[in-house]
């Protein structure tokens, strides 16, 4: 399954993403989810960045929270809303907002 998962929170109260078995996974960090891409805790990046997945973070939501591209982990691609639209239509068949 080609699935793009939207992570909009920094702390998740669901473990769905850990359990899902997805062959072609994208993780899109939006809203407070961008903290996963831009913040380290005790020097450690978010465990979500270790998933076998293409990783994206929305530039608008990074900027809103005072982050710049320099803060973003190298594994994460910074995209804008227009690029997100293309990713949604071209790269994934199903979308999940956790």
């Amino acid at each position, binding site marked *: *399954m080609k699935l793009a998962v939207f992570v909009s929170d920094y702390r998740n*109260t*669901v*473990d*769905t993403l850990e*359990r899902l078995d997805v062959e072609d996974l994208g993780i899109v960090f939006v809203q407070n989810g961008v903290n996963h891409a831009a913040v380290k805790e005790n020097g450690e990046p978010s465990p979500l960045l270790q998933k076998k997945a293409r990783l994206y973070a929305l530039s608008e939501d990074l900027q809103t929270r005072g982050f710049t591209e320099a803060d973003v982990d190298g594994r994460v691609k910074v995209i804008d809303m227009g690029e997100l639209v293309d990713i949604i239509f071209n790269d994934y068949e*199903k*979308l*999940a*907002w956790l």
Partner: protein
Amino acid sequence: MADVKLAFIVQRPPYKSENPKLAITHAIAYQVVEILLEEGETVTPTLCFVGDGVLACIKDQKAMDNYGITSTETHLKNALLVDLNVLVCKEDLERFGISEERIIDAEEMGAEVKIQAVPFAEIQKTMESANHVLFF
């Protein structure tokens, strides 16, 4: 002329937000969607409870007595009465120690289907075969 399959995944407990209830009511609407579709077009939702969402399936919810609102239990019974396919994750039931006799059913109301406790792998398959997934 086709059927569109939907996986409704309830992953949070009831009574914190309207999510679990709205998952059920939206799934039930599959019964009346035909008035907005062409002949032969159908929508088939499967309603799946995983994680803390399985807590919605415990019977004897006294929401009406205590808060004057329809319980999630009543909504689930309505879902069973319209033959909706309702799955609950077996591993999560076991994790919470919820025995099968505590699971809601609507037999006394004449429902022909029951909530089925299935392994997570089956819920995964439901998501794979669905055209769209909706997480609540």
